[in-house]
C-alpha cells in the first residue's frame, strides 16, 4: 500500500495550481527560499518565474495586495508560516475580503487563499501556536478549512483554487506535515466544504478538527479493544461544516465529545453544542465534553506544554467515562506518551 505525507499533498496542490492555471500566484515570506514553506513551494520560483513572489515583512499590505490581485483576475495563495502572524492581516481579511462580494451587491468577487500554519511543540510558546479558526469562522463571507489528511488537502485545495470564488483560509497543522498517511484513504467523494465521516461507530460521537482527528483515531483504536465504538467526524470546514452529519450521529449515540486545536470557549465545541441545542438538546443523554487547549496562552516549557494540550489519554478517559455514563470506568489509560512524542517526526529548531 502506498502512502504519502501531508506535506507532499500540499506540495502537489501548489505545483498543480501553478501548472494548471497561469493566473495563479504564490506570495509570502520565504516562498522562494530553500526551505520553501516547509517544503511545499520548493523550486517553484525557478519553474514559474514571476508567479512565486517573495515579500517584505508586511502582512497587512500583502493581504491587501492579494485582494487587489484577486480583483484583477489572478488567484493569490498567500502563506503565513504561523497563523499568529495572520492577525496582522485581520483588517484586510475581515473588513475587506470577507465583505466585498456582499457589500457591493455582487459587483466583485475576491478569490484568494490564505495558508496559515498552526504551530505546536518544540517551545513554540504563546505567539507561535495559535489556531484561529473560531475567530475567522465567526465572520460571514470567509470560508475556513482545517484539512486533517493529505486527501483532505488534495480535495479541498483543488476545489478552492479552481472553483471557489471567495476568500478561503486554510489552517494547516505543523505536526501533520511529515506524517505518512495511507493512500487508499482517498475517497472520491471527499467533501470540499462540509465535514467527513472519518469512522463509523455506535457508542460515542467525537467531533474533531485537524490533528485532533488523528488523536481521536488513536483513542478509538485503543477503545475498540475494550468494546467501545467511537464515531469520528472530521469537522474539516469549521465555517461550513455538515450540520446534519453531526445531528444524525449524536441522535444515534447520545454522547458527544468535541476535540479542537484551540480554546473551548467561543470555539468549535461551543459552536457544535449550539447546533445541537437549537435542534434538540435532548439528543444528548449526557453532558457533552469539550477538549481543547488549556485556558491560558501557550507556555514554552515542555513540561507545561504537555499538560497544555489534550492528548490521547484525555480522549480515552473522557470517552470511556461517557460510555460508562459515570465519572469512573474500567478502561486502563494508555501510556502517557504525548502526541509530540508519538509523532516522532517533529523536532526543532523550528
Amino acid at each position, binding site marked *: 500500500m502506498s502512502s504519502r505525507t501531508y506535506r507532499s499533498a500540499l506540495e502537489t496542490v501548489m505545483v498543480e495550481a501553478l501548472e494548471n492555471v497561469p*493566473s495563479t*500566484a504564490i506570495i509570502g515570506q520565504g516562498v522562494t527560499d530553500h526551505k520553501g514553506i516547509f517544503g511545499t513551494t520548493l523550486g517553484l520560483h525557478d519553474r514559474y518565474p*514571476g*508567479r512565486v*513572489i517573495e*515579500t*517584505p515583512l*508586511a502582512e*497587512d*499590505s*500583502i*493581504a*491587501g*495586495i*492579494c*485582494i*487587489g*490581485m*484577486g*480583483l*484583477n*483576475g*489572478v488567484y*493569490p495563495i498567500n502563506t503565513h508560516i504561523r497563523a499568529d502572524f495572520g492577525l496582522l492581516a485581520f*483588517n*484586510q481579511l475581515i*473588513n*475587506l475580503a470577507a465583505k*466585498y*462580494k*456582499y*457589500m*457591493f*451587491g*455582487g*459587483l*466583485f468577487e475576491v478569490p484568494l487563499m490564505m495558508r496559515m500554519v498552526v504551530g505546536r511543540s518544540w517551545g513554540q510558546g504563546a505567539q507561535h501556536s495559535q489556531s484561529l479558526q473560531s475567530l475567522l469562522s465567526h465572520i*460571514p*463571507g470567509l*470560508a475556513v478549512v482545517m484539512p486533517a489528511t493529505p486527501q483532505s488537502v488534495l480535495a479541498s485545495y483543488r476545489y478552492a483554487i479552481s472553483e471557489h470564488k*471567495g476568500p478561503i483560509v486554510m489552517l494547516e497543522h505543523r505536526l501533520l506535515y511529515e506524517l505518512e498517511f495511507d493512500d487508499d484513504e482517498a475517497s472520491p467523494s471527499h467533501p470540499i466544504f462540509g465535514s467527513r465521516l472519518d469512522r463509523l461507530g455506535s457508542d460515542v460521537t467525537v467531533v474533531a478538527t485537524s490533528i485532533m482527528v488523528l488523536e481521536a483515531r488513536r483513542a478509538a483504536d485503543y477503545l475498540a479493544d475494550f468494546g467501545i465504538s467511537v464515531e469520528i467526524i472530521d469537522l474539516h470546514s469549521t465555517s461550513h461544516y455538515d450540520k446534519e452529519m453531526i445531528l444524525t450521529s449524536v441522535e444515534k449515540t447520545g454522547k458527544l465529545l468535541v476535540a479542537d486545536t484551540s480554546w473551548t470557549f467561543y470555539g468549535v465545541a461551543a459552536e457544535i453544542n449550539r447546533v445541537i441545542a437549537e435542534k434538540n438538546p435532548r439528543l444528548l443523554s449526557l453532558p457533552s465534553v469539550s477538549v481543547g487547549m488549556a485556558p491560558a496562552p501557550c507556555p514554552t516549557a515542555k513540561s507545561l506544554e504537555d499538560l497544555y494540550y489534550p492528548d490521547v489519554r484525555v480522549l480515552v478517559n473522557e470517552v470511556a467515562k461517557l460510555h460508562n455514563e459515570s465519572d469512573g470506568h474500567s478502561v486502563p489509560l494508555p501510556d502517557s506518551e504525548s502526541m509530540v512524542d508519538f509523532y516522532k517526526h517533529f523536532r526543532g529548531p523550528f
Partner: protein
Amino acid sequence: MSNRDELIIRSLRVRMVEEKIIDLYPSDLIQSPVHLSIGQETVAVGVCAALDDRDMLFPNYRGHAFYLARKAPLKEFFAELMGRKTGISKGKAGSMHLAAPDYGVMGASAVVASTISHAVGAALAERIKGKSDRVFVAVFGDGATEQGAFFESLNFCSIHGLPVLFLCEDNSLAVHTSLDDRQSFSLERLSDAFGIVFFNEEAGFDPVAVFETTSAALRHLRGGSGPALLRVKTMRYREHVGPGEDFDAGYRAERTVTQWKKKDPLLGDLSRFTAEIALIRDEIDQAVEFAIGSDFPGIEELLTDVL
C-alpha cells in the same frame, strides 16, 4: 468647448450632485453617512480626465467625485445612496462604498487606507497576466498616509516597479485634526526615500492644473519607470461627514476656506454655462426621480452574495 471649460463643467456636475444631496438630506431619503467632496471636485475631475478608460481606480469613502468623474451612471448613484434595489450595488453599499467596475471604479472602503494595497495588488496581477500599459490609481486622503499599510504599499510597489499612481487628496484634515498634529514627515522626502517620483500640485482648485500634473505623472508611469506619488492640495468646504458646515467648531479658520474659494472656478462667473447647467439639472432631477421611484431591496436580498 475648451478643455478648461469642459473640466469645469464636469466639476460643476459633481458639485451640483452633491448640492442636491445636501438638499435631500433633511428629508431622510438618504439614510447613511455622506462624506462630501465639495471643494475637492476638481481633483477627481482633473485626474480622471487624464486617465484612460482601461485604467483602474481605487477610491475611498469620500468617493462621489471619483465615481462621477469616471462617468459611472448617475441614476444608479442616487438609487444607491437612497438604499434602493436599483442602486449600483442594490443599496447594499451606500455612499461610503461606491463602485462601478465597468467604469474602472473599484470598491471603496470606509476603513482608511485599506484600498491602497489593492491598487498595488491589481498592478501586480496585471504584470502576471502579461504586459499592458494600464495604470492603477490608489486614492486616499492625507490622513491615510499615516497608516502603516501606506508605507508597506510604497515599499512593495517600488521594489516591483509597478505602475501605480498614489494619489493623495490633501485637504490637510483628518476629521478635525490638522496635519501638524498627525505628521512629522514630509511626503516628498518620504516618497524620495522609497525611490518614488513625487509630483505636487498646489492648485487643486484648478482642474487643468490637476489634469496636467496628472498627465505628467502618467507619462512617467506608462514609461515603465515604476510608481509615482501625486499630492494635490485641496480644500474640504463642508464638515467631515454630513451635509453641513462647521466653521463654528473652531478646528480650522473659516478664512482659510474663504481664501481658497476665491480661486474656485466653480464659484466664478458661470454665465457661459447656462445651457450645460440646465442639462445637468435635468439629469440630476431625473436620477433623483428614478431613485425615489425605485423599490427597496427586500428579504430576497438579505442573504445573497455572502460567500
